[in-house]
């Protein structure tokens, strides 16, 4: 049943780079009173205390492995057993500086962890919910007890992207594909890593609006070409090699405002790809200058279809009041995929006022569009894809239960790679962590190979979580979950599941 996943042998663990510095607990060793007896090293089963062979002193505690003050109930609790009382364990102040209401510190840390191990989170893990007090964070599944250990190969997590009667078939192995992040907004290494993972998992990634770098050509069966309003880097051959072409009308984080690459990130390489002048700010205007009606929109889709009849057509729109009418219009104009991008989604740069205030959150839009398409009698012919604030495996499942066929993610992949969500992607040379930047001095921080493993591990963990969920509901195919709002319940803020 698992034929759609072509190459998903589990990736070996990747070295932990992030969890070392930011952890839930601080383990403090008083160097003045510690006599380096090493008892703690032999006590701790988690590996917090270590000494390099031949060294006198112990290494600084590996706090990421510590389970915290609750360890006090164990007889191996280092703090109680230390003969000189040199150890203390307390919540880490640094941990509280990480994350925000939507991406809590718990969620970021857990994403890093599954990116390192590929192992799923339990379905009731606190990191499955944010603290935003609404939407996905107040929706939970009515999860029945586990029925034995599910065999992941027994479950299908694939979805068909072309649900019309005509046209090429395109099935992806997981109900997730990568959203558009352009060359310029992220580094070439990040783009390449995403494309490699897309191939491994038989899914897709997207060029974003910044051209189609040659490095992605080997993965072209898994790379969506985005056609956005600035038409940066859009050429005949980039459309011809794509299995799917995505029209970006609007982006959820800045609906109705167009794209924006600040001049410092427009390096000569980026400019060449975009056929623009280096170090000028690049605006992708809003809207398409040639589209002022559904008829114009259809003309656009026909134009792509004539260049590449084998490509599926996806239309990415934001979530206005009348989002259901937009979805219906897109379908009749010829789109295979209606891609709704909700207001709380990620971005490389957007006015703060737009992120919270303009257009509705994706949770509302999915439900509204799904119901309306059903009423119109065309739900079976449309693939409804949701994005914009989908952070983890359970968000994906909830989006599907609300009525989407699948989702698009961006930020979750970046967090898996090592993003801390500091929100400075737009400034200066870009991301200090070397992800959302093309600055050569910054981007060396990340190796393509490591990024591939981390993102692939993320997908692996997510897939196992979905299998767990399907197993409990007695389902064997993720498409059976679609529209099952009866399996959801509203929970007060702060309840895990």
């Amino acid at each position, binding site marked *: 049943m698992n034929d759609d996943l072509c190459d998903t042998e589990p990736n070996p663990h990747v070295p932990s*780079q992030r969890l070392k*510095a*930011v952890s839930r607990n601080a383990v403090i060793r008083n160097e003045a009173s510690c006599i380096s007896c090493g008892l703690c090293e032999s006590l701790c089963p988690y590996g917090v205390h270590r000494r390099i062979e031949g060294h006198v002193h112990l290494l600084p505690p590996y706090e990421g492995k510590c389970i915290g003050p609750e360890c006090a109930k164990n007889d191996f609790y280092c703090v109680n057993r230390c003969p000189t009382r040199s150890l203390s364990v307390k919540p880490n*102040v640094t941990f509280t*500086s990480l994350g*925000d*209401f*939507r991406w809590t510190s718990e969620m970021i840390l857990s994403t890093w962890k599954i990116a390192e191990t590929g192992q799923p989170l339990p379905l009731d893990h606190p990191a499955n919910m944010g603290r935003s*007090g*609404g939407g996905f964070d107040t*929706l939970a599944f009515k999860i029945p007890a586990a029925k034995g250990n599910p065999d992941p190969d027994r479950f299908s997590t694939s979805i068909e992207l072309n649900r019309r009667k005509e046209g090429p078939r395109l099935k992806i192995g997981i109900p997730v594909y990568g959203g558009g992040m352009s060359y310029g907004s992220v580094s070439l290494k990040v783009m390449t890593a995403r494309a490699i993972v897309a191939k491994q998992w038989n899914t897709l990634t997207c060029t974003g609006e910044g051209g189609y770098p040659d490095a992605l050509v080997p993965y072209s069966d898994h790379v969506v070409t985005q056609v956005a309003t600035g038409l940066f880097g859009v050429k005949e051959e980039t459309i011809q090699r794509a299995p799917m072409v995505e029209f970006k*009308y609007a982006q959820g984080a800045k609906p*109705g*405002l167009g794209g924006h690459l600040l001049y410092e990130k427009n390096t000569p390489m980026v400019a060449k790809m975009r056929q623009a002048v280096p170090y000028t700010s690049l*605006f992708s*205007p*809003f*809207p398409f200058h040639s*589209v*002022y*009606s559904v008829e114009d929109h259809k003309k656009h889709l026909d134009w792509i279809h004539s260049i590449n009849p084998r490509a599926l057509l996806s239309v990415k729109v934001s979530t*206005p*009041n009348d989002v259901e009418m937009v979805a219906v219009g897109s379908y009749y104009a010829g789109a295979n995929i209606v891609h709704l991008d909700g*207001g*709380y989604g*990620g*971005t490389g*740069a957007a*006015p*703060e*006022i*737009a992120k*919270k*205030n*303009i257009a*509705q*959150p994706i949770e*509302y839009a999915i*439900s*509204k569009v799904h119901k309306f398409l059903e009423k119109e009698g065309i739900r079976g012919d449309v693939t409804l894809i949701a994005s914009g*604030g989908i952070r983890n495996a359970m968000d994906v499942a909830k989006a599907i239960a*609300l009525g989407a066929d699948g989702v698009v993610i961006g*930020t979750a992949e970046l967090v898996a790679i090592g993003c*801390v*969500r*500091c*929100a*400075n*992607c*737009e*400034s200066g*040379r870009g991301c*200090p*962590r070397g992800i959302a930047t093309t600055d050569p001095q*910054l981007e060396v921080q990340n190796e393509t190979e490591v990024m591939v493993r981390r993102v692939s591990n993320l997908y692996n963990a997510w897939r196992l979580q979905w299998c767990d969920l399907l197993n409990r509901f007695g389902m064997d195919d993720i498409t059976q979950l679609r529209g099952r*709002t009866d399996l959801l*319940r*509203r*929970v*007060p803020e702060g309840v895990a599941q």
Partner: protein
Amino acid sequence: MAVYKRYHIHTEEALPRVAPVGKFDIVRAENCVNCGTCIRSCVYGVHKRDEKDGRSMAEPLSHLCKNCFRCLMECPQRALSMSPGKVYNSLGIGVWSPQRVFTMWNEAQSGKIPVFGAGYRGRFSGPGFDGMWTDMSEIVRPTRDGIHGREYISTSMSLGRKLRYLEFDQQGRLQTAVPHVIELPLPMVLDATRLGLTDESLKGMVSAAAHIGTFILVPVEKTGLFRGEEQQFIVPVLLGGTLELSLPESTRMVEIRRSPGWESLMRHVKSARPDVLVSVRLNAGKDVESEVLQIAKAGADIVHLDFGEDGKEAGNDGRWARDALRSIHTNLVRNGHRDQITILAGGGIAAAEHVPKSIICGADCIVLEKALKVALGCHACPDCKMTCPADLKTAPSDWVEKRVTNMVGAWRDQLLEVMGAMGIREVRRLRGEQGRAIFYEDAERDAFAGITAAERSG
């Protein structure tokens, strides 16, 4: 021939006068070995060597920290830690959240729209204006190339009564007396009556109002400080019940309180100075809908609705301004009086988005009050303490002018962003357009009706 001039607020950077506040505190522990790795890892310049002794590290410049964690992760000694800024977390109260106060400071400093990467970080929704989203339009756009593009989005609005119809006699001569209206270039006026400003700061604010081209409400006893050009931007606020009429020639509008005898005071002003608009200030509270209607019927030009700085009506069961404004607007429309009165709304206006949202709910124009002080670096403490952390008493007027102008300029640009996204090219059209917003209660009902609520436990 009149030369077309596009309205634009010129802004100029105005740095803070006191030590900047950081969102995060970086602490370097004792076990630092002064290796300097953090200097290389920080792209923002938080870590530097001690200027006097290059062998050791200086105190981290926490206010420059942008939360990237790189120095923490790269420190071989793990000597660095980060915590949410203590001062930052103590800023403001209620709707005046630390994030909003901090944002206003930055707007007042740079005059620019705050732009950041990554997605939204805050709560899903919230009470009052946080429980609504503005609409956007996928393909209809007034401007083809950004908000400052070729096609103009107008933020002008008119203060004063508008007629529902005109009457002519048989010879076709106009019989109706056309009331006087005043056009403002943006739907924001400043209110300095209750801010307790020094004369120096007040002068700065009046200059800012003149620079922007909008009104500023000033206590009548302070109006004597101003001469010449600036007088026309001043709205004297008559706090007492009587008036010795010595309004300067250039006064265009006055404000009176809705206290006993207000109607005769209004008639008095109108008979002495028919060219002056009268605004009636009213505390929003119980029965505000019928009071506004009454004020409109009595012939006032403008009603200034005063909400609390918590964004609510007075009283324990006061509604949020969002709900009160919708109800007031709807009530006026229903009674056929909406355009006979201009609604100014103030109180709890703590962020740029509150301007378009108030207008969508039914206000014509927004009154900025506490925000003006925050623009000067005020921490929005619950009470003014003995020692002001922003040292407002010594603020020079030219700096005050720049800060206030910058913030209002940034807010107007953000109003343009919201209108641009909606495909609305005139702010007058935004007023009361409740159908172009998404309200939390409606959206919840439409999307989640049928999903059962879990039993509340604990």
